[in-house]
Each structure stands twice: as structure tokens, then as C-alpha cells.
């Protein structure tokens, strides 16, 4: 009996310990689960924060890629939600929409982990061709007495315009005279079209001055084109002062100084590309542009000096015939005579046909001078009775010129709540796409079937050309696009 009692008591004690141990284990276990849960919640929040940042960066990368796509002549669309571009551990796609002529809206969505971000960028596409800028004084435009700025349409034909004495705004072609600063019109000056000052600028009219169109300021400043230097063989100095006629044709050279002396004529015969550190045409010297067989492109890097009494001649009267690009800047004593010389002295007589671009200099056209084509300068000044006739046939710019893409507006796009709620652990699962089947960004550009004609520089710095179907061209080889022409293929 005692033995049984003892056995019973012993059994009871062992059970008590078991229960107490179980309670303790459960308590500790419960506490651990709570702590783990708290910790994992904190970790999830941190990971989500990191994923959101990565997604944001991917969306930014998408916008940059979209901009580059527009710059290289593509639509700007890269991939889609169904087939996005793979980038690192995440993905992105860009949707481009043309919201106005040459104004493109890019919407880029990036996804990484559980993060998703959408950004929007509106860009404006402008041709890098200087003629596309029209008539521009980037800092200021000043028109002297009875000066005139108008436009005409050569239709690609040669010959000076037959200008009506009285401009009919209902039938005439309107010019856009632009500045990023102020526009001043002297007495009786005329602008047949719009005079568009900069965002902070204004138009000032003297007595009886007239602007037939709008004088409202531009919403944003007009960007200037970059002058890309020509890669030419050096030709030393060219001094032609023998009183004869000399013709430059064929392969262009990079000259130090080109000087045309008195009673001497220098003919630049196209097709021709040449550059000069200084171009000086002296009194009674003549510079003739012969573009019957092709255009002439002339770069002047330090000093354009067309002296009083010098003559410019354009027998073909073709506005597409000459591109005169002057990168010269800053006033200093250029000829060593002790007086300060401006980078551009334009005192020639005659007419000018073509595009004249001097983005860093003041360009003052002399009294009564006539310019046909396009002209841009830092300060554009028309002397009394000088006239600029913009040829709207140049408005589209050189179709082979590359384009600049300027950002206008950037913003974050809110993600709809239902999309944000349904994000999985990784974007490939969310979008139900296979990571291995996705293309990298450069191969995910929207490919429209175009006939492509492109001059480009490859990764090794070699100038190359491609002509053919766009789908056959691998854009990843093009590091810099020099010229681009794209035509939509037509089905026969």
C-alpha cells in the first residue's frame, strides 16, 4: 500500500513538471514568434523601401534610355508591360506619345523586387540644323530704321523672292523672329509675322514700327545648336591677293587664315567642306559661292572679317547652297593693330543666300543688306533698311541632321492603388514574364520598319555609314549619330 502511494505521488510530480515545462516552452515560443514577427515586419518595410528606390532608379534609367531613343530617331517607346526591357535585377518599359508636333511625352515604369515607380518626362525634339532656328538673336534682336524681316517659300527652287511692297498677312508666309531676350524695332521697321521675345523679354516698337503677328513671349528659351568641328586635313594659310580669280573645289581643308585681297576673287565650289581659323575678305575683294553642283559648308573658328567694300556673290541664289558657321567668340585685338576686334565684322555688300550661324557673336548686317535663308547670332542687329527673308523651305532643317532633345517637364506618376496592392515578391512574377526571354534596353526599342540612312561613330571611334532596313541595323553599335535619315517603307 505504501509502495502504491509512493508510486502514485511520484507519477503526479512528474506530470506537474511536464506541464510546467510545456507552459514555459509555449510562453518562450510565443514570445519568440512575436519578436520574430516584429523583426520581419521591420525588415519587410526596409526591403520595401530599398525596392522602391531601386524601382525609381530603374524608371529614371528608362527615361534616359527613352530620351536617347528619341535623339537617335526612334519613337522613344521601349518594351511594353507585356514585354519589358530587362535591366539588372529589375525591368522597365517606356511608352512614348507624340502630344504635339515634336513634343513627346515619355512615361517610364521601373520595377524591382516589390517596388514599382512611374515617371513622366515631356521632351521637345529640335533639329540640330542651324537653319531650323530660323531668324534668332539668342540674347537680343535690334532692327534699325525701315529694316524688314519676313518669310517666303522658295519651295527648294533657286532665285530671290519677289517681295510684295505691301505684305498680305492672309496670303503671305509669316516669319518667326525669335530672341531669348528683348526684340527692338526702330522707326518704320517691319516684322511680317511673329516677334517672339524670351520668357522674360519684351518687344519694343519705335514710331510706326509694325509686327503683323504676335509679340507674346516664348514659354521657354530657344536652345542653340552645337557646331560640330569638321575633321579635315590641314591646308596652312590661304592668301589670295593676286587680283585674279581662284577656285577652291574638291576635298576640303582646314586652313589657318583665308584672306582674299583687293580685286581678287575666291570661288568656293560645292560640294565642299572647309574650315578657317580666320576668314578675311578685304575691300574690293570678292567671295563667290558656287553651289550649282553641291552645297558649301564653311566653318570659321576665330574671326570672320568681311571688310567694308568687300563683296559676296551667290550666282545660284540657292538658300540651301551655303552653311556659314562661325564659332568665334570674345573681342580682342585680332590683327595686332592695337584696337579691339569683334569676332564677326560683317560689312560686305551684296546679298547672302544660305544659313549664317554665329551663336557666340554679335552680327550686324550693314545698311541695306539683304539676307535670304536663315540667320542666328547671339545679338542680331539689322542696320537701317537691311532685310532678312527667311526661307521656310529651310524650316524643317536638314532632314539628315541629328536632333536635340530638350526636357520640358518631369514628374512622378502616382501608381493606382490596385496595382500597388497586387505586387508580388519579384516583378517577373507580377508581370508573368520570363526573365530569360526579356531583351536588354538597347534591343527593346520599338522597331517601326523604316528605310534608314545613318552616319554614325562606333564604339571604337570609327566613322561608319549604314543604309537599309532599320530592323537590320543594330543600334548598340552607334555611339554617336552624325546624320540620320529615316523614311517609312511603303508596301508595293
Amino acid at each position, binding site marked *: 500500500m505504501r509502495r502504491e502511494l509512493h508510486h502514485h505521488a511520484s507519477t503526479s510530480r512528474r506530470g506537474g513538471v511536464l506541464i510546467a515545462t510545456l507552459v514555459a516552452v509555449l510562453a518562450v515560443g510565443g514570445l519568440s514568434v512575436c519578436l520574430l514577427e516584429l523583426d520581419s515586419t*521591420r525588415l519587410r518595410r526596409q526591403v520595401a523601401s530599398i525596392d522602391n528606390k531601386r524601382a525609381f532608379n530603374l524608371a529614371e534609367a528608362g527615361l534616359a534610355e527613352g530620351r536617347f531613343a528619341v535623339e537617335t530617331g526612334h519613337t522613344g517607346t521601349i518594351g511594353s508591360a507585356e514585354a519589358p526591357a530587362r535591366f539588372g535585377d529589375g525591368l522597365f518599359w517606356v511608352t512614348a506619345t507624340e502630344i504635339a508636333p515634336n513634343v513627346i*511625352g515619355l512615361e517610364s515604369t521601373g520595377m524591382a523586387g516589390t517596388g514599382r515607380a512611374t515617371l*513622366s518626362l515631356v521632351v521637345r525634339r529640335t533639329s540640330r540644323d542651324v537653319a531650323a532656328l530660323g531668324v534668332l538673336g539668342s540674347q537680343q534682336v535690334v532692327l534699325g530704321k525701315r529694316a524688314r524681316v519676313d518669310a517666303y517659300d522658295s519651295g527648294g527652287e533657286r532665285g530671290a523672292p519677289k517681295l510684295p511692297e505691301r505684305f498680305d498677312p492672309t496670303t503671305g508666309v509669316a516669319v518667326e523672329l525669335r530672341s531669348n531676350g528683348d526684340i527692338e524695332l526702330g522707326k518704320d521697321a517691319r516684322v511680317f509675322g511673329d516677334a517672339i521675345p524670351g520668357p522674360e523679354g519684351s518687344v519694343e516698337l519705335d514710331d510706326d514700327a509694325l509686327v503683323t503677328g504676335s509679340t507674346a513671349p516664348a*514659354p521657354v528659351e530657344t536652345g542653340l545648336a552645337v557646331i560640330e568641328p569638321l575633321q579635315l586635313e590641314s591646308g596652312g594659310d590661304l592668301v589670295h591677293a593676286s587680283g585674279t580669280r581662284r577656285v577652291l573645289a574638291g576635298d576640303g581643308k582646314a586652313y589657318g587664315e583665308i584672306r582674299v585681297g583687293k580685286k581678287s576673287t575666291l570661288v568656293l565650289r560645292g560640294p565642299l567642306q572647309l574650315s578657317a581659323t580666320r576668314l578675311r575678305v578685304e575691300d574690293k575683294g570678292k567671295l563667290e559661292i558656287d553651289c550649282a553642283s553641291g552645297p558649301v559648308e564653311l566653318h570659321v573658328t576665330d574671326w570672320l572679317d568681311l571688310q567694308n567694300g568687300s563683296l559676296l556673290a551667290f550666282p545660284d541664289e540657292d538658300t540651301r547652297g551655303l552653311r556659314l558657321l562661325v564659332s568665334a567668340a570674345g573681342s580682342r585685338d585680332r590683327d595686332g593693330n592695337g584696337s579691339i576686334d569683334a569676332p564677326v565684322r560683317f560689312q560686305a555688300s551684296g546679298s547672302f543666300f544660305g544659313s549664317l550661324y554665329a551663336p557666340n557673336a554679335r552680327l550686324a548686317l550693314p545698311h541695306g543688306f539683304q539676307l535670304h535663308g536663315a540667320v542666328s547670332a547671339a545679338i542680331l542687329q539689322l542696320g537701317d533698311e537691311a532685310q532678312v527673308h527667311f526661307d521656310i523651305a529651310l524650316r524643317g532643317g536638314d532632314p539628315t541632321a541629328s536632333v536635340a532633345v530638350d526636357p520640358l517637364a*518631369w514628374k512622378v506618376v502616382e501608381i493606382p492603388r490596385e496595382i500597388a496592392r497586387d505586387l508580388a515578391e519579384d516583378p517577373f512574377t507580377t508581370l508573368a514574364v520570363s526573365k530569360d526571354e526579356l531583351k536588354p534596353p538597347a534591343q527593346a526599342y520599338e522597331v517601326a520598319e523604316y528605310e534608314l540612312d545613318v552616319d554614325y561613330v562606333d564604339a571604337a571611334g570609327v566613322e561608319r555609314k549604314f543604309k537599309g532596313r532599320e530592323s537590320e541595323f543594330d543600334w548598340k553599335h552607334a555611339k554617336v549619330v552624325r546624320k540620320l535619315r529615316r523614311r517609312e517603307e511603303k508596301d508595293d
Partner: protein
Amino acid sequence: MAARARRRGGFTLLETLIALTVVGLVLGNIVMVTRSTSEAYDEEMSKASLELQLDQTLDRIALALMAASASSLQPGVATPAFHSTLSYAQSLGVQDGAVVHGAPERISLRIENGEVVWLERPGEPGERMATWTRSVREFLEGELQNGVDDNGNGLVDESGLAFVIEGPIVRVLLTLEREGAGDRRLTYTRESLVRCRNS
């Protein structure tokens, strides 16, 4: 046999005392370990929470300023060297060739409450306000009100939220401070450079 069975039926006073002492020691150790672990955990949680709060606030400020137009920043000059309030307008897009801006917005430090607040249409009918964070320090970490650059960041007596405008780039500095576990003060500071994406 009977004597041995009686001895097994209970514990002596000495045995009980030893057992109680051992149990007390073990329990005491458990309590101490649990408490210190709990305090450490609380402190880590407080730190992590404060850091997260700081990061999230800076991210919000950065996103707002990225979408702002650089020309709309008010005050737009770097005099004095820092500001504790910044007004701006965000770019909404382009319509008819012109950039469209949103309503004026402002990010401001309310020192009396230690709050960073965001306001839309400040001072106008329909004003909206949201508190983006609390626990903002009166002065940036390491800074005292003594006319000297104590923390060597190039700013003198800067507040707990400071904006420094350098063209289209805004330098944002923020310090949060809060009581942590064991009455210790937790202080964290972050600095971020934000470029306004719109001109």
C-alpha cells in the same frame, strides 16, 4: 525499510533552502537576461524606427523637390546660407507648348512642435497641410546656437531641417531626435542632394 520510506517522503530544511536558492539564482538570471535583451531590442527598434522615419521623410522631400521647377524655388538665393522653409511649384506637364505648373507648395519646419509640414496653397483659400514627420531637433546634430559652425558642415546655427540652394540643386539636411530606451536620446542626421528636374 519504514525509516527509509519516511525519509524519501519529504525534504529537509537544508535541501529546501538550497533548492530555493538555486531556483532563485536561475530565475534572477533569466529575468536579468530577458530584461537586458528586451531593452536592447527596444533600443534597436527605436533606432530602426527613427532611421526609417528619417529616410522616409527625406525621400518625400526629395521627390517633391525633384518635380519642382528650379526657377520656382523660394527663397531662390543662398542668403542666408540655409533656409528652414522652401516654397516651390511642381511641373505638371505641357499644354499647348507651354509648361503647366501646379499650385504653390511649401515644406516648412515648425520648431515649436518639432514638425516638418507640407502645405499646398499656403495662406490661400483651400490650403492643405500634412505633417511629414515629428521629432525634428531644433538645431542640426552637433550644432549649438552660438554663431559658430560647430559641426563643420559650412553652415552656422542651422536648424534641424535646413535647405541650401545651389542653382538647380538643393542640399537637404535633417536631424531627428527622440527618447530611446533607458532615457537615452537617439539622434540621427541625414543629408541629401536633390536636383530639380525641371528648369
